């Protein structure tokens, strides 16, 4: 078949990434037990190199490979950089944790690298099977990572629940793919789009197939009602993995959703807009309401991320053939959300490293003992709550503007309202950290009763400090001046919405 492998060099970063992962696994065999951090550093160095490589090679490219299976365009480049960067942050913030809490440390980094590869291909795929298989690569890594603390009952349980529900949902997704295929005979997004151009002639099996695909992706996104695994898995998984689940797996799923909906489903937008909008509405309300009742910080963050997913889904619901605003809004939101969540999770991981506790009441008085740590967590939570000067505000405003521009004001209103609810439980955490009874304040002033962490570590490790600093700057940057990000994001939007 001519031309199929013509531009294969455009996939160099993927091959290199796979090679890097294999290299890490190989080196693991020779690195002594107490030096496994070297693998982390190796991964980071590799990822940094890959970022540079990708930027150099792929900037401005706009190609489709393998007869419509893979796209190398601004969109995939954007997400590629996003995921590679995320990988660096995750590895940085997990190195201490891994060393302390996990066995099989070397493979941990390898799995992270494989999952990044999965995410990259997800963002690039223009075809259902490619998307599915890369999604499975990501999922398998996450299944393993969730169950990584293999001697902890919670981690086992998380792994079991995750893989059962994950396999179940991938069966549903696949059934959807099979229905699409059995109706159209093709699985390329572009062909779906072509078939949908005349929605009246489409077989119901296609609609149901699309719905089933949405179910599978909804599981990945943890959109209601496919979200119930999320709190359990978040809670049971090792802390850095929780962060990874909350950020990476969501962003990757959204990358796929965006491309699928924009390149594949967009002609039938009138049919599915309301469906996605209702799903978004239910998701954000459920997530934020249930989060109100949580006492475990990981579960809280899980429900919070369910709520956030609902909000991002509104942007998907607003996707439109005549405006890039919704697509850009979703991507900008993902950037802001990921930076912010990374900031929060870095703090939480650091806190966990110090105390080994994850109930919210454990944060009591943290601001007095660890002011910087508390401040970063508080900033992150405020940002998640959508307060200004932080990323959360700007990205929400941008996304909701996109909604308004598509006439989905009611949905925007609901989303704003649900952010209000979310603010309440974020405040509960901040309150634990900052607000102390008047008597205690007096004691604190007198120099008594200063908060001292009970765990082995007494301060944030430099690795996490790096993550915190960089994400902190990012959170402020997106919050105050997102224009540079938007330039890139708009290019990405144009890539998946070529008509504009």
């Amino acid at each position, binding site marked *: 078949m001519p031309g199929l492998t013509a531009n294969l060099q455009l996939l160099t970063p993927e091959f290199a990434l796979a090679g890097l992962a294999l290299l890490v696994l190989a080196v693991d065999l020779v690195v002594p037990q107490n030096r496994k951090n070297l693998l982390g550093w190796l991964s980071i160095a590799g990822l940094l190199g890959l970022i540079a490589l990708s930027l150099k090679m792929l900037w401005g490219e706009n190609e489709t490979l393998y007869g419509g299976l893979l796209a190398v365009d601004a969109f995939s480049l954007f997400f590629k950089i996003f995921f590679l960067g995320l990988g660096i942050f995750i590895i940085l913030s997990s190195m201490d944790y891994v060393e302390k809490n996990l066995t099989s440390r070397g493979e941990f980094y390898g799995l992270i690298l494989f999952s990044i590869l999965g995410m990259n291909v997800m963002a690039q795929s223009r075809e259902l099977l490619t998307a599915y298989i890369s999604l499975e690569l990501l999922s398998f890594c996450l299944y393993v990572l969730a169950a990584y603390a293999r001697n902890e009952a919670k981690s086992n349980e998380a792994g079991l629940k995750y893989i059962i529900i994950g396999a179940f949902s991938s069966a549903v997704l696949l059934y959807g793919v099979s229905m699409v295929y059995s109706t159209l005979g093709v699985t390329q997004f572009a062909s779906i789009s072509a078939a949908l151009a005349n929605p009246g002639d489409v077989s119901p099996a296609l609609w149901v197939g699309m719905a089933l695909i949405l179910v599978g992706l909804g599981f990945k996104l943890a959109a209601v009602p496919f979200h119930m695994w999320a709190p359990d898995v978040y809670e049971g998984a090792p802390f850095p993995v929780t962060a990874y689940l909350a950020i990476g797996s969501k962003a990757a799923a959204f990358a796929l959703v965006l491309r699928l909906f924009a390149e594949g489903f967009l002609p039938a937008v009138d049919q599915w807009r309301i469906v996605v909008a209702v799903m978004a509405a239910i998701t954000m309300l459920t997530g934020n309401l249930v989060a109100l009742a949580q006492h475990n910080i990981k579960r809280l963050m899980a429900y919070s991320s369910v709520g956030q997913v609902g909000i991002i889904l509104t942007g998907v619901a607003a996707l439109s053939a005549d405006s890039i605003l919704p697509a850009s809004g979703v991507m900008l939101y993902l950037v802001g959300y990921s930076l912010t969540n990374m900031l929060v999770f870095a703090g939480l991981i650091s806190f966990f490293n110090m105390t080994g506790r994850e109930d919210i009441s454990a944060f009591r008085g943290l601001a007095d003992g660890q*002011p910087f740590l508390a401040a970063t967590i*508080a900033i992150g939570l*405020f940002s998640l709550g959508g307060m*200004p*000067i932080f990323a959360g505000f700007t990205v929400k405003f941008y996304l909701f503007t996109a909604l308004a*521009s598509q006439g989905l004001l009611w949905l925007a209103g609901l989303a704003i309202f649900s952010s209000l609810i979310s603010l309440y439980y974020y405040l509960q955490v901040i309150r634990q950290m900052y607000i102390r009874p008047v008597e205690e304040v007096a004691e604190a002033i007198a120099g008594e009763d200063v908060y001292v962490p009970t765990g082995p570590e007494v301060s944030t490790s430099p690795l996490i400090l790096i993550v915190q600093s960089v994400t902190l700057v990012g959170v402020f940057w997106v919050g105050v001046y997102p224009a540079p990000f*938007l330039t890139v994001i708009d290019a990405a939007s144009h890539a998946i919405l070529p008509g504009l």
Partner: protein
Amino acid sequence: MENFDQIALALIIFIPLAGAIAAMFMPADRQKDVWYFAIVVAGLCFALSLYIFLRYDYGAGGFQFQDSYKWLPAPVDINLSLAVDGISALLILLNGIILLGGVLISQNIVYRPRDFFVLLLALGAGVFGTFAVRDLFFLFFFYELAVLPMYLLIGVWGSSTDFRTFFRAKEYAATKLFLFLVAGSVLVWIGILAVYMGAAESGFPTFSMETLGRLAEAGQLSEEFQTWVFPLFMVGFGVLAGMWPFHTWSPDGHVSAPTAVSMLHAGVLMKLGAYGIIRVGMVIVPEGAENWMPVLITLGTVNVLYGAVSAMSQTDLKYIIGYSSVSHMGYVLMGIATLDRIGVGGAVLQMFSHGIMTALMFLLVGAIYDRTHTRDISVLKGLFSRMGVTGFFFAIAGLASMGLPGLSGFIAEFMVFTGAFRTYLPLAVLAVIGAALTAVYILRLLALTFLGESDARWEHLTDASPVEKAVGGAFVLIMIFVGVWPEPLLRLINVSVDALPGV
């Protein structure tokens, strides 16, 4: 000078913000140093605000000190456009004054002083920004930025209050205040998006208040649209202005907040709400405003009466003042709702006047609380003999609050009444009666707290510190100045109110 005028507004937002950021890097335990630093920053802000106020050419009117920075390109097209008219200039001055005052009297913050001033300056920046911008996005941005620090300021440095019948924890007050204000801003946000949507339907998707104002003027936004959008702004901003029945965050918040925060909060922050109604509600959806004004003025009147009557039954100094703020903001809402040039002017003047007056009161209550550790007026007695200057200042503030001529409150209330009499006679009469109720609770407060035989417990009390005296004295002078010769303020207000549509 021309160049400086251009960047003056950017500077006044940037300086406190930069100050806040710089303060973050100061050593945490050098309390005095942070305080001095904050004074310098606040002093600069004050100087700038005064400069802007004085430089504003009231003969020319309109928006001055214009400046614009590209922020986001099309399709959303958001610019940081800065400009002030007379109303904004006045309120910027108010914020400059109160921010400086608040910082000055915060010398006794010893618990995490650095963070306190960081948040306080950030709050100041938010307020300056809200008053200075001409773009809905940034208006909202700064509006929320002004709300954000409140939670921590109250929660961390506030005080819980144990009444005989109920308990108000500071975190309750802080959370309620914060969520309430954000809930209000939810409506505002929806309103802003609705306006954007409406403008997009007319072919001009923009957040520029200037363009939107022109669209409204040209009748591009249908009356029906305006009529359902305005209540979003009215209630949303109204929450921050303490509009009944959304006022309940305000007394609790005031009570729990530390002194400087109470000052800024009652003095400036509540004005943001009223300012929003004027600047966004009246300008961008004028027809909607017109249709809703009967409701607003009714709520304003309820505010006046309800706040005054509630204040009568309180026993905590700060609660009394808190409810009196509710009552006084009622005049502001009424004045706005008259859509009468005198009434609206009065509302704006009332914002200024009430800001100074209530800030002074909170300052003095703070001074009393610092010394006696109680605010219960049934416990405090005869403070006048121990704290003469404090009592004197408090009396003046109280008199201003009851609208005594010669003090700023009178002119403002009088103008509001004047406007309201022309438009809504029965409600205006009720409001005048409400003004008399003010006398009841203020005199009760003065009589119980300051007058009478001094209690033996208060023998050791010292009078206001030099700083408190200086700040309080300055506030008193401002009140008298405005009360006797309001023209310097009014000529700015008049020309800008005149330019509002619908007036």
